[in-house]
């Protein structure tokens, strides 16, 4: 859970790739990949006089390559900022700050881990799975999405996870349905000690509750709207319940975005 010092650099887009509904960007951003831990994100500035930054999960890093250290992000174009990012051509320059936020906490022992990722938000779970495997943890990855186009590569996931299962809302691939409704069964099957989740708030809440029910640890990656991502503006409040039962508002960007699921006051969140 240690925090590393972020850097603010001008990144260069080295490669772009369309994958289903998403755009993968490979960005040279010296200083960021070297400091990266799974669960960190970058804050990127977008153009057209837009001042709020766009936080994006770091999906992958390469510390060495022909172009030096690089990182990959997965963008789902929907609003103006993400569309702008998805249309960036190779060679474009974008201000990048990172790595930001508290990463996923790793278990000391080789315990059974379930990772639940929904849509593009599954991005940070891939490097997490690799780290957990290095530590000898059996990893079961559940990839969920509305449909096949919004599913992050299950093929790639199989490299770092012992088992990969797929759930889509429309049943276009994998099991049909809502992942939140299946969490209990998934945790049971994997005999999970720790569960990591990234996705919509509803899914994260379901995972946190399911984990608590069976006495497992949960770590959820929150996507609270953020204006700066760096802890400066207090624009990303998350109500958390401390050990003493008192609710406080912490900042998702610096006190999270990865937080113990049992600490989040879900009803008070957005």
């Amino acid at each position: 859970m240690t925090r590393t010092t972020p850097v603010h650099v001008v990144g260069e887009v080295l490669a772009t790739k369309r994958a289903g509904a998403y755009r993968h960007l490979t960005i040279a951003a010296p200083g960021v990949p070297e400091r990266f831990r799974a669960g960190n994100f970058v804050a990127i500035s977008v153009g057209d006089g837009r001042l709020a930054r766009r936080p994006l999960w770091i999906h992958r890093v390469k510390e060495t390559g022909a172009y030096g250290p690089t990182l990959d992000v997965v963008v789902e174009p929907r609003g103006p900022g993400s569309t702008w990012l998805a249309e960036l051509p190779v060679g474009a320059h974008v201000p990048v700050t990172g790595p930001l936020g508290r990463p996923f906490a790793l278990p000391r022992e080789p315990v059974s881990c379930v990772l639940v990722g929904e849509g593009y938000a599954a991005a940070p779970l891939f490097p997490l799975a690799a780290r957990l495997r290095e530590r000898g943890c059996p990893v079961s990855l559940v990839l969920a999405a509305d449909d096949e186009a919004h599913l992050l590569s299950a093929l790639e996931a199989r490299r770092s996870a012992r088992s990969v299962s797929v759930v889509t809302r429309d049943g276009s691939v994998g099991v049909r349905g809502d992942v939140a409704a299946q969490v209990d069964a998934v945790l049971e099957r994997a005999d999970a000690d720790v569960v990591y989740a990234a996705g919509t708030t509803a899914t994260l809440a379901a995972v946190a509750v399911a984990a608590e029910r069976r006495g497992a640890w949960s770590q959820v990656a929150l996507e609270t709207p953020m204006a700066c991502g760096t802890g400066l503006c207090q624009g990303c409040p998350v109500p958390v319940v401390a050990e003493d039962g008192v609710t406080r508002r912490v900042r998702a960007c610096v006190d999270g975005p990865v937080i113990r699921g049992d600490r989040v006051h879900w009803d008070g969140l957005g």
Partner: protein
Amino acid sequence: MVASGCGGTGRELAPYVDLDGLDLVTRSITLDARAGGAAPRVAETPSGLVHAVGHQNPGLEHFLATELPWLVRAGVRVHVSVVGASIGEYAELARRLSRAPGVAGLEINLGSPDQAGEDLFEVREPYHAASVVAAVRREFPADRPVLAKLRPDLSRAVEGARAVHDAGASGVVLGDAVPAAMPDGRPGGLCGPAITPVALRCVREVTALLPDVEVVGAGGVDGPATARAFLAAGAVGVQVGAALLHDPTTVARVRAALADDLADDLADDLAGGPDDPERTL
């Protein structure tokens, strides 16, 4: 100078700025802790941000025990922004801060644009502002600056600046965010480049009509050019606010550029000035 509410607790700026010697205005501190407003708190508009943070802060005691000592150790010149529910609260804040080691000065928040519905002293007339300033000045040592922060409202800026100056303010900050609405209608404050022309006009007007009043400019300072525009309008310094959310290195860049300008001026001065008629060798 880092504008109030835009530098986190100060620590969050450390990766991007050399804190040693940096002037930083804290987020506005109240006597008791405040939880702040509901999310979303910051909305994007063309060339601007509307914020409705609602003065989330840990309260004076916690600030004095944890945040202030850290900032002082880091070498920050700490200007504490104070805001209260009554003149008595402002005075109490000033009294306790006057005894805290390492407080370089105060900035009086005279009614934030997002305060509606919050339990805060309402500054409607210049004499309200003057009463707050006088109460704070009485409790805070005369050799340390007390800045009064005003809204960049042209119809009120000059009389407001005159009133707080007469009440003992060392200078005024022009200005705060412009009262605006969040997308859902809640009150908020507009900041960023969108308000720069408005703030520049106020700075110009006040410095022209009240040459004795020192004005610190604020409103969309996002680089050396905007900072220089405020200085050209008569400001003695500038604050950088919302731009830090977009690029946390902004204050370092502005500081370096203005220091260079100063060094250039000094060099010109020592050389007799660039177009000094006496300059014959």
